[in-house]
C-alpha cells in the first residue's frame, strides 16, 4: 500500500474490524474451547500414599468428581492432561514422576495434593523429596494431610479457572511457577508471578 492511498483510504475501519474479529475469536476460544476443555479434564492419578485413598473417594459416587467432568482417570500419561500427585515421593521415585510429566501431551497441568507432595510433610528424611515443585512445575497446591475430597475438588476448580484463562496455550507459553493455593483467587495470581 502506497503512502498516498493510505492517506486517502482510512485504515481505521479495517483495524476496527480486525480488532472486533480477534475479540470474537478470543471470546470463542475463552468461552468455547476453554469451556469445553475445563469440563473435560483427564487426570493421571499418581497415588503413592494415603492421599490416594482420598483421591479414590473423590472419584467415587459420594463426592463424584464426574460432576466436574474429570472422572476419566487414565493410567497412562499419554491420555491425560492433569497430573495429580497424591502422596509423598521418594527420591528414587522422582525420575518416574518426571518421565510421566514429560510424556503427557500439552497442554497439561499439575496438582500437588497434600502436605507430603507439597512440602515433604512429616517425612523430613534423607530419602523423601521436600516438595515436588523443586523438580517439576506445579500449578495448584492442595493443603491437607490428607485433604478431604471437598478440598481436592476445590483444587480441581482452581485448575478450571486457570484453564478458562489460558487453556489453549501450552504450559511453556504460560511460563513457570504459577503458585496458586486453594482458597486464593486464581485470577489475582495468574500470570503475574514468575517464580523459578
Amino acid at each position: 500500500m502506497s503512502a498516498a492511498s493510505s492517506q486517502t483510504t482510512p485504515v481505521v475501519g479495517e483495524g476496527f474490524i480486525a480488532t472486533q474479529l480477534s475479540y470474537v475469536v478470543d471470546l470463542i476460544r475463552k468461552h468455547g474451547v476453554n469451556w469445553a476443555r475445563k469440563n473435560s479434564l483427564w487426570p493421571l492419578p499418581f497415588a503413592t500414599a494415603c492421599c490416594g485413598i482420598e483421591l479414590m473417594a473423590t472419584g467415587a459416587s459420594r463426592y463424584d468428581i464426574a460432576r466436574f467432568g474429570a472422572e476419566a482417570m487414565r493410567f497412562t500419561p499419554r491420555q491425560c492432561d492433569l497430573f495429580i500427585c497424591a502422596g509423598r515421593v521418594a527420591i528414587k521415585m522422582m525420575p518416574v514422576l518426571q518421565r510421566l510429566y514429560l510424556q503427557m501431551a500439552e497442554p497439561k497441568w499439575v496438582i500437588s495434593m497434600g502436605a507430603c507432595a507439597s512440602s515433604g510433610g512429616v517425612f523430613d528424611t534423607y530419602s523423601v523429596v521436600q516438595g515436588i515443585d523443586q523438580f517439576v512445575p506445579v500449578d495448584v497446591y492442595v493443603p491437607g494431610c490428607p485433604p478431604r475430597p471437598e478440598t481436592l475438588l476445590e483444587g480441581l476448580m482452581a485448575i478450571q479457572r486457570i484453564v478458562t484463562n489460558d487453556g489453549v496455550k501450552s504450559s511453556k507459553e504460560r511460563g513457570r511457577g504459577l503458585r496458586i493455593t486453594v482458597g486464593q483467587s486464581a485470577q489475582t495470581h495468574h500470570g503475574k508471578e514468575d517464580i523459578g
Partner: protein
Amino acid sequence: MSVAVQPVIEALTTRFPDIDFAPGPLLSRKKKEDEQICVRVPPDRLPAVMEFLREDDRCSFEQLCDLACVDYLNFPKARDRFAVVYALLSITKGHRLWVKCFVNDPNPEVPSVTGIWWGADWPEREVYDLFGIKFTGHPDLRRILTWDGFEAHPLRKDYPLQGRGERENFETVTRDSA
C-alpha cells in the same frame, strides 16, 4: 536354656573347640525353656560354622528366617560396632538359633552365606545398602532400597536423619524443557 537347642550347642562346641560361642539367651524370659539362644561366631569362621549348622544331623537348620544388622555405636558396654544377625530355623527338628557375627570399621566385611541359603541374597544386599557391610562372595552386591548414585549408608547411627543434601541434588524438569 531351651532344651531343644542343647544338642546343637554341644555339637558346635565339639566340632569347633577353638571358637568361643558364648551361648546365651537373646532375651531373658520368665520360663527358661522359652528362651531362644544366640551364639557368637567370628567372621573368618562363619562359612564353616554355617555349613555345619545346615548339614549336621543334630542341627539341620534348613531355613534362614532373617538376616539383619545392628549398629552398636554409643551402645553401653558394646565392644564392637556392627553385628550381623542370622535367624535360623530347623523345620525337621523344630528348634531355632540366632547367630551374631561382629565386625568393625573401617572395613566391615562378612563372608556371604548365599552359597548355603540362597534366600540370603536380598537381605545381604539390604544390609550392604543400609549399613555398608560388604559380603564377600555375594554374586550381585548392589544397592537394593536406595537409588543408584547414593553414597551413604543411612541406617548407621552417625548418619543424620535428614541426610547430607542428597535429597536436593537432583535434576529439575522445567516448563521450558517440557
